[in-house]
Structure formats: C-alpha cells, structure tokens
C-alpha cells in the first residue's frame, strides 16, 4: 500500500505544483546566468580571505587610480560650457554622497561627455566616472546620487582594488606594470554579490546624504525596461531604432544582477528601515541629447 500511496501522493503534489506554475506564470530567462553568477561568486569567495590579508595601502591604491584616471580623462575634453557645468554638478552631488563612506579617501567624480557611454564605473583610489548617456536616462538628482553612491561603494568595499591586488601581492608583480591595465577592465562590472552589495550600501550612502532611495528604484526600473527591450526582440521600427542605443549598455548588463532582483533588494531594505519615498529633486543641470538615447527615458 505504501508503495502506491507515496508515489500517488508525490504525483498529486507535483500535478498541483505544475498546475500552479502554469497558472501563475513567472517570467524567467532561460540561460546559464545563474550558474555563471554562482561560479563568479564562489571564485570571489575563494579569493576573499587572501585579498583581505594582502590589502594594498591607500597610498598605493590612490597612486594607481590617479595614474589610470589621468590616462582615461585625456581621451575626452570638457570644453563646452554645458559639459563644464555638468562636471561641476556631478562632482558636487558625488562629494555629498561620498561623505559617509567608510573609507575616507579623496573621492573624485568625472563627467564623460559621450552619449554612447551609458555606464558608470569606478577606479581604485576614489575615481568615479559617469557617462553622458547614462545621465540622459535620468530625470532626478536622486537617481544620480544613487548611481554615484553605487560606484563609491565599489571603491569603499575594495571591489576595484581586489581585481588586481592579489596578483600584485601573491605573484610579486610591480605596481607599475598594472598601470597599463585598460580602464575597460573596470567597466565590465563585478560579480552578482558585489553588485548587490554596492547597490545596498550605495543606496544607504544616498539616503544618508538626504536623497530618496526611490531614485535607485526608478533607475533600476529604467534598466529593467531597457533590459526587456534588449533581451526581447524588437517588434516595431521604434524599438529597432532604440536598439542602436541599447547596444551601448551591453557591457552594463553583462554581469550585473537582473534589475528586478536589484529593485526587490532596495524595496526590502526600504521596508525594513522604514525609509519613506519622499519626493525626488529634479536634475539641476541636464545634458542635451543629440541622438535617440533620450527617447529611452
């Protein structure tokens, strides 16, 4: 009897579960992302203890970061009055946000006047870069603050410097050799757990600076919409046109967690900490779009 009842029971439960999952469709993307993320996180976990034991000094990290940043900023010139104003604006917001970071470094914020750069990234030592393309997707200062907070936390949590410090320490590679690393090495994103960590702590920095956490949520919602459009096939000419701009964010989504998961995390923290979604401040300086990127907003 037991031999019949048990499988019958399992089958009944399984049938019910199947019925449930078919009725309550849960959107997912079939692919290896979960496994790859888990592998990346495991790899980071393995290197975490050695990384903690072989930290570079802040001076070394700053020296490296300054050198890399200098090389990168020479690619772009900020001549236009509009670009100079944006540079100043980004620096101002960034400094406010970074004031509450654990590592007391001299954080520097750089505006890159390139519409194709729909990305932000950090370099070791305190340098944060944000592209014009990404700012064009924003409409509030809170969004900007949350993005800058996110990047500051990559520095604050040693995510940037950990990328090469093990090589430096364990393999006795001179720092000068690492200065030749391309900046794109830092633009490619981090592990899923590192990104979630930066989201969480970056939002906290923004909140401490007086910005709304809703800025982070809305920014991720924009990413979610772009992600859907990027992943799903375009079904109209308009969507096809916007695909051109979306190609630029390929790098951003390459290793970041799904936007929906990031939104859930922020919303959970907001609920746990009783953060109110107070009104956001509009961007005080707004870049002028010359391409279709602005339509993505």
């Amino acid at each position: 009897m037991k031999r019949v009842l048990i499988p019958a029971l399992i089958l009944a439960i399984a049938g019910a579960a199947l019925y449930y999952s078919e009725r309550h469709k849960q959107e997912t993307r079939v692919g290896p992302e979960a496994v790859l993320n888990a592998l990346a996180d495991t790899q980071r976990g393995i290197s975490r203890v050695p990384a903690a034991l072989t930290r570079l000094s802040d001076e070394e990290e700053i020296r490296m970061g300054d050198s890399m940043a200098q090389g990168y900023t020479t690619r772009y010139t900020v001549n236009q009055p509009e670009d100079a104003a944006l540079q100043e604006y980004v620096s101002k917001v960034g400094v406010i946000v970074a004031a509450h970071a654990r590592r007391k470094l001299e954080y520097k914020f750089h505006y890159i006047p390139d519409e194709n750069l729909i990305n932000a990234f950090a370099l070791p030592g305190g340098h944060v870069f944000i592209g014009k393309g990404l700012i064009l997707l924003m409409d509030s200062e809170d969004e900007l603050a949350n993005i800058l907070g996110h990047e500051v936390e990559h520095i604050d949590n040693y995510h940037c410097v950990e990328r090469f410090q093990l090589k430096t320490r364990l393999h006795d590679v001179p720092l000068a050799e690492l200065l030749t690393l391309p900046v794109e090495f830092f633009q490619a994103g981090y592990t899923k757990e590192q990104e979630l960590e930066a989201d969480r702590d970056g939002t906290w920095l923004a909140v401490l600076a007086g910005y709304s956490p809703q800025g982070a949520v809305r920014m991720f919602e924009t990413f979610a919409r772009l992600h859907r459009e990027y992943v799903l096939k375009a079904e109209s000419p308009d969507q096809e046109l916007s695909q051109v701009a979306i190609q630029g964010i390929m790098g951003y989504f390459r290793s970041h967690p799904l936007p929906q998961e990031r939104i859930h995390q922020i919303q959970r923290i907001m609920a746990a900490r009783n953060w109110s979604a107070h009104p956001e401040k509009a961007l005080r300086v707004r870049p002028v779009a010359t391409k279709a990127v602005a339509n993505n907003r």
Partner: protein
Amino acid sequence: MPAEKKSISLEERLGISWAATIGTVVVVVGVVSYTAIKWKDMSAGLHVTLLYLLGAGMLALGVFLERKDLYKILGRVLIGGGWAITFFITWAINHLEAARVLHSAPVDIALLLGVAVAMVWHTLKYDSQTVTATAFLLAFFSIGYKGDTALSVAAGAILAAGLSWIVVRRRWYQLEIFGILAAYLNHFFWVYPIIDAMAGHKVPFPEYWPSAILLVVYWAIFRTAYLLHKISYKEEEAVSTIAALLNPLLLLGLLKYQSVHPELAFYALLVLGVLEFGLGQLPVARARKAPFQVLSCLGALLMVVAVPFKYSGNSLDMLWLAGAEAFLLAGIFTRERLFRGFGLIISFLVALHAIPVRIAPLVEEIINGQPHYHVQVSIVLAVIAVALYANAHVVRRIWPDLFRDEPEQTSGSVLSFMASISAVAAVYAFAGDNKIAIVLALLVIVLSFLGKQFSIDELVYQAHWIAVVAAVQVIVIGRTLETQWHGVPERILTFAPVAALLYVSSRFVRSSNTNSKAVFAAAYGWAATSLLTIMIWFQSPDWCMTLLWLGLALALSLVAGALQRTDFKWQAFALALLSFGRAVAVNFDLTNIFFLHLTYRLISVSATAGGIYVLARWAPLKQLRPIYSFSGTFLLAVLAFKEVPEPWIAVAWAILAICLSLAARLWKDRALLWQTHILSALATGWTLYASFAPQYKDSRVQLISVVITAAVLYVQNWVTNIKDVIEDERISQAYSWAGSLLVSWLLWYRLEPVSVCLAWAVFGMLLFEIGNWRSWAFLRLQAYVALMCSFAHIFYANFNVPRSPGTLGAAAIDVMILSPIYFFVYWRLHGKTTDASAVESKIRVEYLLSWLGTATLVALARFELSLEAVVVGYAAIVLGTLLAAWLMRLRVFLYQALVVLGFAAFRISTHNFFRLEEAFSSSLSSSIWAILLLAACVPVSFAMRQTSGEPGKGPRWAAFLARHPEQPLFFVPAILTAVLIALKASGPKITFEWAAEAVLIILVGFFVRERSYVRSGLGLLLICPVKVLAMDMWKIHDTGARALFVVGIGAMLMLGSFLFARNRETLRKFL
C-alpha cells in the same frame, strides 16, 4: 667456374671493347669537326698531309695492337677508324674547297674506289663484322657530313657496292641492313638541304635526275646482292628478307621526298612493281623460294598501289574486285597459295578502299542529316558485301583443304567483317530512315541464324555489332518520329519489331557455338528491353511511364519464370530501378489533380511503390530484395513528405514504419525492419524539426502530432523486437528512447520554463515506475536521464528568476518537489525491488539520486534564500541529512552532511563574516543561527560514530571523517565561533569570549569523554593569556582596569586548573 668467367668476360667487353669503340668514334668525329671548322686557317696541302698521317698512324697502331690478344678489339677499332679517315681525306681533296688539291672528280672517285677496295681488302683479313662495319660507318659518315655534289654522293654508291660484295662473300647479312640504311640516309642528308630550302614548294632542281639515278643504283646494288645471297639457315633468310623489304621502301620514300613530278608516281610504282615481280620470277629467285615470294608480293603490291594514282570512280571497285576474284580463283585452281593470297589481299583492299570512297561520305551525310539514298552506291556495296562473304565463307566451305592455315583463316575472318560493314552501309544507302533499323535487325537475325546453323562464329559476332547499330538507329530515328500509320504511332511500329527481332536473335545467339554466347544473348535481351523501355519513354504520358515500365518488368519477370531466363529478371530489376529513379525525378512534381482531390503524384508514386514491392518477389537474387523494398519505402516516405502537411509528415512516416515493422514481423524480413528503423529515426527528427517550429507553438497540431508519433514509437518498441531478426535488442529499445525524447521535448516546449524541471521529473518517475514494474532496465535508464535533466534544468530556468526572499514563487515550489521525487526513486532502488542492470550498477544510480536530492536542496538554499541566510539553509540541510542518516541508518546521507558542512563553512567564512559590520546586515544573526544548527548536529554525530569495524574506502582522511563525524561536526562550529568572536568583538572582549568558549569546549569534552575536544579547548584557553599579555593589556590605558583585567584572566586560569584537578582521573583516561 664457367659462370664467373662469363661474368668477367662481359665486364671486359663493356670496359674494353665498347669503350674503345666509342672512344675511337669520338676521336674521328672530333677530327672531322675540327677539320671542318678550322680548315680555312691551314693550307690545304698541310692538312691533307696531316690527316693522311693521322689515318696512317691509326692504321699502323691498330695493326700493331690487333696482334696482341689483350688489345685485339681496340686494334680492330683503330684500324676501322684509320681507314675511315683515309677515305674521308681522299674524298675531301676534291670535294671540300679548303682541302682541294685534286681538281678531277673522276680521279677522286677512282681514288675513293681504291681506298674502299683497300679498306675492304684489309678489314676482311680480320674476318670481323665489327671492324668492317666500323670502317663503313665512318666512311659513310665522312661523305655525308659535308657532301655537296652528286659526285660526292656517288662515293656512297661505291661504298655500297663494296659493302654488298662483302656481304655476299662473307654472308654478313646484318651488315647489309646496315649498309642499306647508311646508303639511303647518306643520300637523304645530301638532298635534305636542297628540298628544305624550297619551303614546301617543290620545283625541279639540277640534282634531281642524278639523285634519282643514284637511288636506283643503290636499289639495284642491294637487290642484286639480295638475289645472290646464299642461305644456310632460316635466320639468315629472315635477315635477308628484312633487307629486301627495306631496300624498295627506302627507295620509294626518298623518291617521294624529292619528287617534283607527281604524275610520274604511277609509272615509278608500276615499273618498280614490274621489276620486282619480274625479278621474283627469275630462276635464281625461285630456287630460294623466299625471294620469289617476297619479290612477287612486292611487285604485285606495287602494281596494285599504282592503280589509284592513275584511275578513280566506280569502275575501280569492280575492277579490283574482278582482279581479286581472278587471283583467288586462279590460286584455287592452280593450287598456288600465293595467288590465293593475292586474291584475298586485293579483296581486302577493295573493302578498304570502299571505306573512304563510299562509306565515309555516306556516314557524313547520315551525321549531317542529309539524304543518303543512293541506289548505285548501295548496289556496289551490296555486291562487295556478297563477294566478300562468298570469298570468306562459301569458298572456304567448298575448298576447305586450301584454307586450313592460320593466315587464310584470319584473312577470311577479316574479309567477313569487312563484308558486314559493306552490307550495313548498303542498307543505309538503300532503305528509308524508318526502315533501316528493321532491315538491320533482319540482317542481324539472318546472320545470327546462319552463324548458328553453319557454326560460322564470325557471322554471329558481326550480328552483334550490327545489332548495336540497329539499336542506335532506332533510338535516333525514334526520337523524332511523331507520325502515325493507320492510327498506330510509327514509333511503336519501328521499336517493337526491332525489339522483337532482337529477342529472337537472342535465342539464335544463345544456341550458337561462339565464345561468351550467354553474355551476348543476354545483351540482345537487354537491348530489346531497352528499346521497349525507350519506346515507352517516348510514347507514354509522364504520369504513367513508371507504371508501364513496371508492367514491362512484370511481364519480363513472368517470362523469366517460364523460360528460366535469369537475364530477364535482371532486366526487370533494372526497370524497377528505372521506375524508381523516374518517380523520384519526375512524378513527385506532378501536382495536378487526377480526380477528386487525388493528384497524379499520389496515384502514380503509390502505384509505382506498390509495383516495386510486388516485383521483389522475382528478384534475380534474394540479396537484392532489400533494394526493392527500400526503393518502395523511399517512394512512399517522400510521397508522404510531399503530400502531407508539414507537422503530420512525421505521423505519416511513423505509421508507415509500423506497417513495415508488422510486415517484417510477418515475413521475418530484416530489410523491412531496417527501413522501419530509418523511417522512425526520420519521424523523430522531423518531429523535432517541424512540429516544434515557432508557427506551431502551443497549437493542438503540435500536441496531437507529437503525441501520436511518440505513442507509435513506444509501440514500435514491442513490434520491432522480432526474435532472430533484430540484431540487437537495444535497437528496439531505442524506440522508447525516441518516444521519451519526444515527450520530454513536448513538455519543454509547451510548459513554462520553470515548470519543465518538475514535468521532466514526474515523467522520469513514471518511466521509472513502469520500468520497475516490467523489469525494463532501458526505461529505468530513460528515467534517470530525465531526472538528471530535470536537475540540470533548474539551473538554467528556475534559478534565473529574480531572487525574492520571503516569497515562494512557482519556480521555487517546482524545485522543492524535485527533491522528494529524487529521494523516492532512491528509496525504490534502495529497497531492492528490482535487479539492477549493468549500467545502473556501474553508475551507482542509487547513490547518484540521493545526491541529486540533497543537491537540489542545497541549490534551493543557495539561490532562493537571501544572501546572508544561505548558510542557515546549508546548516539546516546538514542537520536534516544527518538525522536521516541516523534514523534510517543510511550512511550516504552522512557523507552528504559532511560535504554540505564544508559548503556551510566556506559560505560563512567567505560571505557572512565579511558583512558583520554593515548596517543592514543579517549576517550576524544568520551566522549565529547557522553555528547553532551545526552545533545541534554534534549529539547526532556521536550516534553515527564508528569506533570499530572495517575502515571505509577512499582517502584516509575521508575515511576518518566518515567514521568520526563528531570531529568535523564539532570543530567546524567551534572554529567558526572563535572566528566570529574575533571579528565581531574587539580588544579584550575577544579574549574573554574565547576563554569562555574554551571552557565550554573543555566541559563538553569531559562530558562526552572526547580527548580531542579537551585538547583543543585547552589550546584555545592557553592562547588567551598569551594574547592578553601580548596585546590586550597594552590597550587598556587605565592602569586599574588593566589590573582587574589581569585578575580576571588569572581567575579564568584558576577555574580551568580547578576543573582539571577535579577531573584528574577522568583526564588521565583521556590524556
């Protein structure tokens, strides 16, 4: 040692004789060349003197050396060379400008003659062809090198005469051949510059007549010598005959080369022919017989050849033919073989002449499509054919004793063959286009009948090629023959009689005595059948051509059965293949409607396939039957592909396959079974390709077609398992694999991605249950694959759903149910309700499934819980698996607990411990909960401890852990606690808390009487004072506090001491 001697002799010959000869020749050539080039720089007298001295020196040296055995050959060669130089100088003193010291040509010729005579006289002393030949060779070369007048060449005639005299005297007939070649070539070198300068436009030149006369003189000298030959051996006669033939041939060749009066060719040939023929009749020639035959033949031949140069037109054929018959009959009546030979040869020439003159123009007209009706020509050719047939066969049958020898037999065969050519040409020149093939076929039947009746093989062989011509003719004509005769297509009236006649001829050929008669008879049958096939091709509508061919094949098969003619069966086989090819190439495109909704394609191809299946019964070889059935099946399969809508094609194939497998079961036919396999594989592949195409997504068509196909495949699993027919049971099992594949594929396509894993797991479980019930290991293997795929799929679909801790989505629910399914199958296997197959034993599927169950839970924890709580999930799994291991006495779960314990330790130390300081972190609470859960495992682990028994397999450390799970399960939480304290607390607090932990460990150690615990607790406890003294104490700036701190430390130490003292006895047992 004769062999050795022979060997050495050969070496000597190569090294001395040949080397000397070649060396001498080279010297002479060099001297001559040098002389020719540098002559102008020296006075003529001086050079003449020098060269005479050289020649004399060589002669003297040669004479001297020749007397010594060792240098005999070298000496003879030097003699030859010396004479050659002497001869050349003698010639040069008159003929070369630079050396001219003598101005009288006759005197010079006289001198040359003298030298030649002296040379011959001298060389003959040595009785050596080598020496004499060398002398003559060099002499000829010397003259030919710079000859520029006829008189110069006349010296060659003198040489030739001298040489011929020696040939006759010494019977050196090989030397004669050499002399002929040398004389004529020498002459050629003389006339060549003259003729070549004319650049193809020959005009009369002064030396023409001297040259011609000189050539005739050569001929006369060598012919006279030939007639004077005295033959002792057969070989000598053979060599003489070659010389005799070479002489006129080279004469005529050179005359032709220098000819500027072509009109004289007839007379030259005629005169030479008469002369040769006349010489052949001389007593001296008849006495030796060979000259008589050779010269008579030559003369006759030259006379006959002369005629075309003078005459042309029809009269020539008849004239020759009359001559030939005259010679032949004369030869018969006089019993003179030679004349008979002339007759046959001239007959042959008549036929040969007819080819370019009569037949070639006719062929050209036929090829160009021009009218070729020429009664006169046809009559001439027919007469030639009759005459030649008569000469070849009638005469031979009447006077067989005269034609027994092989040459006569061969010539008869050749004439017969030529007669057949003339006869065919006559037919072409006489009959209308439509009737040629029929007349030729009649000729074939007549020849084959006569050949069979009178045992004349040649006639039968001729019938063969004429049959080929007839077949080609009927095909060529039939291609464009569209007219009708009284309502009957003329094409049928042409093809059918020819085919019929060929079929009948086939019987005659089979009854003949010719070689390979069976092969040729079969070829006739093939040709006839081919003609009927082609006739159908030309005459039939497209759609029923294959059916008519198959009808013909059926008729042939029936006749083959009645007449025991295997070749007809082969023809039927070819027709079946042809029908198949035709159906493939043409019938599949016949999409017009025949009636109702049935297309011509459906009707014709299905009927063709049926016909081919039926014809398999009369296959020429049993081994060929599969070809028939494969062809039929192929046609039906492609027909289904063309006629049936895309998603139903696989269903149609599957149904066809099951029909074939039932037939295979009925008739025990392996070929049909293989067709079933192929069709089923195609059905499976096509289902995957077509039914799952985007346009059928979520459609009923997809569902029904895939289900039917899968069901048929499952049924095939039973139907194809035919005892003694199927090679391997695994083939039939493959059907169920294919069915399962389709079902799995269907589930994958139709369900939500997150549901697929559960659906596959349920499917796998059902397969397992059926396999278990029926003891079908292959179904159980499919179940395992499905279960493993379900496990893999969760990582690609379910865990990609955004993590939302605190909520339970469908994706997580589906994954949660997987684990019980895996454990259930494990439980079934563990219960040993069935015998495990070899594969199951090999992959240890039982353990694999239990690991899958636990791994699913671990993955669920890893991907579904919040990042911090993952470790709690791991710890809970450790506890759960450990309890399962303890309660159910299943050590596999103990191993799993230990592995997951490792995961938990890794996770907590690389994740949670790094987030203890953060604002929203639940890492601390998660870490504490995890450590507590792990600590809760310790009592259970003691229950699992094995203190005796065999050591486990694997590495020593792993075996130790398995036997002593209390060690890792205690120390992991203990170490984690110590680290947690170090990370969370600060300064002296760490020391206190470590000390407290150490005491607790020691107490537990005593309680459970575990020596390692006590030792580790002591170790930790001892670290505390060291830390205090080294670090903590100096961080306390308040000296009082610092003192109290030290006291506290001391107290702790005392407490420890007390405890040890109190438990000394117990401690001794441990320590």
